[in-house]
């Protein structure tokens, strides 16, 4: 046996599971974003995060991490200002 079958703790994040995403990915309109954080709360993968940057209206907008996003679209569904759009992904 040559292949190592065990893993060190905390190494799961090294696996970029975003490549399982089937067909759609979220796009966040930073100008529309009001920084409410609903997307972060709803995301099952925890890939919506506060960037710490402000838009022209002074709102701290959110961004997504496509390395782990599965494209479920819940963020787009819960966004109260429709700042998130699910776009078709061409691989």
């Amino acid at each position, binding site marked *: *046996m*040559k292949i190592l*079958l*065990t*893993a060190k703790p905390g190494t799961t994040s090294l696996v970029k599971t975003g490549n399982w995403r089937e067909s759609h990915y979220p796009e966040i309109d930073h100008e529309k974003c009001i920084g409410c954080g609903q997307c972060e709360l709803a995301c099952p993968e925890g890939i919506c995060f506060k960037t710490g940057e402000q838009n022209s209206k002074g709102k701290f907008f959110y961004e997504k991490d496509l390395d782990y996003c599965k494209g479920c679209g819940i963020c787009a569904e819960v966004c109260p200002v429709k700042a998130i759009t699910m776009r078709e992904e061409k691989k």
Partner: protein
Amino acid sequence: MKKILEGSRAIAETVRNIGIDVISAYPITPQTHIVEDLAKLKADGEADYEYIRTESEFAAMSVLIGAAATGARTYTATSSQGLLLMTEVLFNAAGMRLPIVMTDANRAISGPINIWNDQQDAVTMRDAGWIMLYGEDNQETCDLHILAYKIAEKCLIPVVVNLDGFVLTHTVEQVDIAEAKLIKKYLPAFKATEKLDVKNPLTFGAFVTPGQYMEIRQELHDDLRASKKVMAREMLDFKKIFGRKLSLVEYYGAKDADTVVVAMGSVLGTIKEAVDELNKVGKKVGVVKISSLRPFPAEELLKLIGSKKQILVIDKSVSLGEEGILSGEIRRSFYGQSKAKIVGAIMGLGGRDITKEMIKQTIVTAKKTNEQTIFVGK
């Protein structure tokens, strides 16, 4: 030390002498005496393993996965429905490359419910990635257990040692029980290269993506195939230390036989008697014993009996709707490489007796029939 004792007791004493760290089991007929004897040895202070009686076979094998992952030498025994219940865990044990050794007291599968011997239970785990050995008598079965640990720990592949339920487990005969000291000479303490350790946390049985899965499965496949060579070598070593011969395939009977019977397990004793009688009256018949279903000794068999005219395979199991497991294995191994007429006979299901007369008659029937598979019940 030579003793007259029940097959189950002989296995229990051998397992105790091997030096096990953790035994976990759930009782089921006809395996019960084995785990009962192991529990008694522990209760009487004659063994120092941890004995865990779980609530099911599924749990028993799961406990062993955990124990084996810590680097412990592990053992369980089961039978029939119990083996089926642990099926999911069996695949994991092999996939995680844990050198667990298990005894399967072969028994029929429900339904209808039947507690007697045939070999249907173990063949259901044929593709689980385990090494599968079959004992002809209690001495050989005990010896195979010692060999099993050696191969399991060398190849990091779990091993199941099969013996016919009741026919062997409940039969009292002479067995030379290998002493612990002698076993230690053959089988050094198991040292796992990687193990569960609170000071150095590791994940066993981790999730893998399509990017890794195939290579890991192929490696198990390749290593299982390669284990045949390891086994052949270890069998020679076994003879040097214990003085008893073990082999992947063994031929018995007329050297110039044109008809050969092939089988696994205790029925070989009856076949050998039948072959003796047939040889005495000038019939050119031989018999081949197969001790390992996985890895399958295809090349060895082809070399041994590929040039024969007629091969009769006796199966105590059947891939329903197709044919016996062993006859199927032989047919694919011989395809395009042998002109032998291969007939599979399904016999002895659910504890039906297989007599010498039935075997002699089946040899005649197999010559005449155009069927690939026949059921012989009387």
